[in-house]
């Protein structure tokens, strides 16, 4: 089962400058079934990035457990692909080498892994950029490569940490539409972190509103797919759902 389950997850840490213990995440339980797209929204400081870092294995949890693909998480691993806000592409590798990195770590031969990488680049319409270095790409392109790199490693779950937060508004909309398209084509299991309410509603099947380290409410998004911004702009249901989530976030 390529699903993600979180049981009573919590995180407290000691802040040496404030000289006190801080609770960042408190008793969060969440279930992301195989092939589902779940978004977590909340204001900054609500603990959403901490949750993602624990699932990714970058931070140890203080309590509770995380189960991915029927296995308990301890430390980072290739079963959880991560897309970073800072794109985190290796500057010294070409786009192709970046995308082929995961397969390379699995021990896939040169020819085969380049084939895999080219397939995934074609999926995102990036074939022409294969030989370029990340710093030669626009911000939007860099983010696309970041998504493709994580997908090409065929993780059980894809974790996305505000991946579109630092690109311009037009590019962001295009990237969001592309992500929904890729999700429909491949049906990966995705946990998406964002503070942008319309983005969460547009992308996900379910939106989890987080506040002060706790789950405030979960909202089902039953909008039809394929989704496009042109259609959503005038969609009453989209507006109602967005307004509802926004209310929850602002009340948080």
């Amino acid at each position, binding site marked *: 089962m390529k699903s993600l389950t979180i049981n009573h997850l919590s995180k407290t840490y000691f802040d040496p400058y404030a000289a006190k213990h801080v609770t960042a995440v408190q008793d969060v339980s969440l279930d992301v079934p195989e092939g589902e797209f779940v978004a977590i929204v909340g204001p900054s400081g609500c603990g959403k990035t901490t949750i993602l870092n624990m699932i990714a*294995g*970058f931070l140890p949890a203080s309590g509770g457990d995380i189960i991915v693909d029927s296995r308990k998480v301890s430390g980072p*691993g290739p079963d959880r692909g991560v897309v970073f806000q800072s794109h*985190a592409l*290796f500057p010294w590798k070409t786009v192709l080498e970046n995308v082929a990195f995961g397969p390379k770590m699995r021990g896939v031969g040169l020819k085969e892994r380049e084939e895999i990488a080219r397939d995934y680049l074609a999926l995102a319409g990036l074939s022409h950029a294969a030989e370029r270095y990340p710093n030669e790409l626009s911000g939007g392109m860099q983010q696309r490569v970041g998504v493709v790199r994580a997908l090409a490693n065929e993780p059980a779950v894809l974790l996305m940490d505000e991946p579109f937060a630092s690109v311009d508004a037009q590019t962001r909309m295009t990237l969001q539409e592309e992500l929904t398209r890729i999700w429909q084509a491949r049906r990966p299991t995705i946990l998406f972190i964002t503070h942008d309410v319309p983005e969460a509603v547009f992308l996900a099947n379910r939106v989890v509103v987080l506040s002060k380290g706790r789950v405030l409410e979960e909202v089902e998004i039953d909008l039809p797919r394929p989704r496009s911004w042109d259609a959503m702009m005038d969609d009453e249901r989209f507006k109602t759902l967005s307004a509802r989530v926004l209310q929850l976030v602002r009340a948080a």
Partner: protein
Amino acid sequence: MSEAVAVNPALRLWSGYLRLVARHPVIGSVVPFLPLIALWAIVVEAGVFPRAFFPGPVDVFHSFVDLTRKGILPAYLADSIVRLAVGAAAGMVAGILLGLLVGLNERAHRALWPVLLFFQAIGDIAWLPLLIIWFGFGLETMTFVIVYTVLFPVVLNTVLGVRSIPLDLHRAAQSLGAPRWRILTEVVLPGALPNIITGLRNGLGYGWRALIAAEMIVGTSGVGFMMFDARRAGSVVEILLGMIILGLLWYAVDALILAPIERATGQRWGMVAR
């Protein structure tokens, strides 16, 4: 604006020069020396200083031809370059390894960082008296000095480079399934490479000077020895020749080795400003 405004011929010459330099950067770093050399020649010909005290470019060129024909200059030059190359290679390998250890391991950093700073502060040349007692006026002394000089800038810059790699790159590699030693070869080494090269550049800069000093003080051959020997004999021509050769040699090292590496790595990757 369609009327043709007469362009000052000097300006036209200048813009022609700028365009030429843009196309062939080498010209831009050669031409400025011509007026300087001319000025030098004029001052010498005018006889402001006694000629033995301040010889002209022609004299220096003659001595260059003379020493090359006798085979002294090529032999000394080869000695200096071989010493520098061997010392720099050894210093670089040791420096990178030590730098990785200190950069990656917090305990090693705590224990070794002050020690490294202190030994760097002592400086290579201050070791010479002790080295002469240990090894005498020989190759070991000079090799030690160069390895020592190259080592510290490489270590310190490698540490800096290792520590400046964004955390997200480590995390990305981990979540793509890279085991620890692969992170070392795929993330840490390439990520620190621009800094390592900076360290090498600084190290060679210092190492070069240290070699000259060592050759002056303990040497029996090499460009530094040639210059100091000339000083004993009062031959200013050969001193000037030595200085010019040192400068040119650094240009060659920079243009043929360091700059191409920098263009192919850090600059290409957008990690350092061009």
